[in-house]
């Protein structure tokens, strides 16, 4: 007869204790193992969803403590890609469990200084603007490209910067639409507006052309995803409230998001603020208006553009495919470009290793996860890798640059925008 473990009653009152029902949904079947990038790269079940959930359960059973080195290492090494969620028959809300665990561990010991500094900057709009301004200045020089080949994180960071922005030059074109598909505000985001400014403008143009009237939503800021993933739920909630208030002021039907990670976060605002009676319903109302830009575009067709004979492959951002379960709309966007040849990417739904700031904090594992992605991209022979998330764009872009590949990472919206520009010539 089985010797079932004792009840889970340690760490009462922590976010982890509140997450117990989600932990209990795991029956340990192991169907998540092959979906987990860190398990495949590191070959130890502690680096798998099933292993990490076992550790979470053990924390609640009191068999390990939040200071335990093993626990911290394995929880830290999770990318948070949530590929296990689309593999899990039992519906374990892994992303929420991970955030609750990190929040609980954080109470025992703070994360590394590098992570804290980055998150601190992200939570202060003025600092963020300075950081992004400095990054743009640097990105405009040849320095990042030159330094991108040096080994280590500094070189990788430079390669990321060199890959920021759209790699496709296009002429300005006159853009008008009938606005009959409704109104939309756009989440500008921090990294998107800072380093992918042109992609944000392209987003506004392609939405307009496809029948959405764009409405400003002043006062918006960082979505809080990076903080939530790191377990700093308090800061995440603070940032969420700012955004909720800003988007409540916009009468737009939709809130269009072109960064998969931010879209996933905003759709979960209700869960983030579930214990805040004043904000929970407001969060739910804003979350229900959130759409990935590809969803709005595919609902409208989208309208075909001018011919662009390019070989393109598509890499699905984890927070689009696994967190938001959006698979086909980005392909519809690419299909609206005549002449574009879409080459399937093997394991397109596997993580690239970017995972927010993971590639800066856990470089070795990030590199190990990126390596098969680069091999699979090389196999396609494509000249562009389309993917709709700034982290993935810079991670894959940096990987391509450093491996000497001539392929470039690009947002699908930039391809569609260039195709529209081409049409008007």
């Amino acid at each position, binding site marked *: 007869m089985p010797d079932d473990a004792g009840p889970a009653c340690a760490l009462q009152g922590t976010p982890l204790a509140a997450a117990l029902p989600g932990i209990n949904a795991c029956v340990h079947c192991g*169907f998540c193992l*092959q979906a987990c990038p860190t398990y495949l790269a590191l070959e130890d*079940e*502690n680096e798998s969803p099933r292993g990490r959930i076992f550790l979470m359960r053990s924390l609640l059973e009191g068999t390990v403590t939040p200071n335990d080195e093993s626990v911290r290492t394995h929880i830290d090494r999770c990318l948070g890609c949530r590929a296990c969620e689309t593999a*899990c028959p*039992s519906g374990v809300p892994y992303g929420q469990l991970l955030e609750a665990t990190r929040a609980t561990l954080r109470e025992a010991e703070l994360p590394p200084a590098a992570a804290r500094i980055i998150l601190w900057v992200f939570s202060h709009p003025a600092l963020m603007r300075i950081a992004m301004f400095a990054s743009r200045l640097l990105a405009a020089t040849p320095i990042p490209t030159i330094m991108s080949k040096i080994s280590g994180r500094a070189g990788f960071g430079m390669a990321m910067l060199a890959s920021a922005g759209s790699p496709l030059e296009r002429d300005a074109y006159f853009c008008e639409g009938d606005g009959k598909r409704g109104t939309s505000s756009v989440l500008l985001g921090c990294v998107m507006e800072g380093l992918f400014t042109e992609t944000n403008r392209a987003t506004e143009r392609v939405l307009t052309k496809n029948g959405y009237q764009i409405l400003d939503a002043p006062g918006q800021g960082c979505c809080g995803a990076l903080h939530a993933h790191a377990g700093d739920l308090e800061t995440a909630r603070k940032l969420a409230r700012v955004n909720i208030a800003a988007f409540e002021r916009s009468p737009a039907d939709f809130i269009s998001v072109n960064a998969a990670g931010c879209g996933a976060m905003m759709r979960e605002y209700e869960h983030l603020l579930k214990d805040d009676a004043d904000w929970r319903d407001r969060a739910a109302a804003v979350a229900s208006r959130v759409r990935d830009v590809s969803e709005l575009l595919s609902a409208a067709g989208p309208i075909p553009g001018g011919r662009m004979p390019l070989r393109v492959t598509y890499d699905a951002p984890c927070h689009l495919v696994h967190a938001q379960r959006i698979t086909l709309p980005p392909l519809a966007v690419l299909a609206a470009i005549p002449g574009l040849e879409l080459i399937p990417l093997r394991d397109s739904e596997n993580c690239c290793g970017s995972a927010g700031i993971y590639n800066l904090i856990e470089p070795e594992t990030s590199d190990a996860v990126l390596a098969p992605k680069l091999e699979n991209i090389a196999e396609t022979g494509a000249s562009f890798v389309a993917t709709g998330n700034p982290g993935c764009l810079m991670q894959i872009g940096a990987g391509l640059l450093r491996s000497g590949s001539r392929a470039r990472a690009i947002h699908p919206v930039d391809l569609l925008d260039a195709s529209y520009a081409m049409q008007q010539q």
Partner: protein
Amino acid sequence: MSNVALAEKLAVIVGDRFVLQRDGDLLVYNSDGLPGYRRKPRLAVFPGSREETVAVVRALADAGAAFVPRGAGTGLSGGALADDVVLLGLHRLKRVMSIDQENLRAVVEPGVVNLVLNKTIAPLGLLYAPDPSSEAACTIGGNLAENAGGPHCLKYGVTLNHILAITALLPNGEIMSLGNPEGEIDGYDLRGAFIGSEGCFGVALDATVRLTKKPVAVRTMLADFTSVDSAAHVTSAIIASGIIPAALEFMDEATIKVVESSVYAAGYPSDAAAVLLIEVDGNEAGVSADRDAIEKICLDGGARAVKVARTEAERGRLWQGRKKAFGAMGRMAPHLVVQDAVIPRTKLAPVLRRIAEIAAANRVTVCNVFHAGDGNLHPNIPYNADDPDESERVHRSMGEIMHACVDAGGSITGEHGVGLDKIGYIDLIFSAESLRAMCRLREVFDPDHRSNPGKVVPIHACQEWRATPAGRKSPASELVAVSAESQGV
């Protein structure tokens, strides 16, 4: 040898990162696919190559240390639990070493995941037939150790029929070839003995597996019934008609509901008392005729409707729902017992009725999802283990169900193995004499009982045998003597 000294010795072979000895690192390895059981290994070691595996097993032999081989840890009988012995994880040995398209075979390492092998050979129009529901995670080595089954084993046979040869590493570090790639058996079929030995005879360094041509035509049908009895009778009637479907699977109402609420929702009718998922394959003319015949048997037997998958995607969904059903049961309660038993197919209806009675009497919910075509039952019970009363009722039900299956002329395991979970039931089906014979066979491969100790055959059975004067003779020498005689030496 002390734990620390042994760990150091092993780390020299596999590297520090692949020897685990901290409590926190070993926690997840306390369980396999049946987390109701927990056993703490003294340490865990994960060799990354064939050479490392041989060196590790030899080092363990030198140290006299017992070990438990483990693949992906998806087993459902507690077979991969290491109780204060070394856990030997073989999941890093994941190379498909060669594919011989002409002779329809491949050589694979034990850590190759079943579905990864199938994905690798699919572009060649080939498949590896045994398809346990855990195919997305479980390894060929684990399949070999458990003689794993799966839905399609009804027509194609179990793992035993698809492993032609094994390079076995015995617990003493000796390497042995069992069987041969041509499929001819010379002398005793030691390959047959090794397959299904649940890790008690040693580990496989590689296996030569049989590949099967993908059938030209496939029809996948979903027959829906308003009574469990009708579904059970139809199952028997289909086989009695002379048709051997590629697969014939049963799911009851509770299972259908839980699958339909998961990401693997397959479109099963949630108001049905039971569904049968039936697949026939072969050439186009044959499957069309079989499909018509099966549809008629189903409708005559009381099916409300028989739906046929029209596209490969639809077929895939019907199968995914079935294969992920057990995992989906986590939605119903925090804990789950998964059971495995076999009964004569003709007894399906009365045994399912008996199971329903047992469940009602003990106030538990049984979810039936199983390989009906070969009478391989899987009654699963979701429950809350923190409630001692409920826990008691669940485990009592399981015992009663096992007895009901044995009374119906069945056996205590169809495909999950005995491991730790079924060891208490083994006396129901084997005499003391049979168990002693099993002990003797085991000792041919592992005289010191160092490989997966305490599993399959209860220790008392072997101890009794050892206590008899005849038993003290070396069992291996007895068998060798017989073998030499038979060859006229």
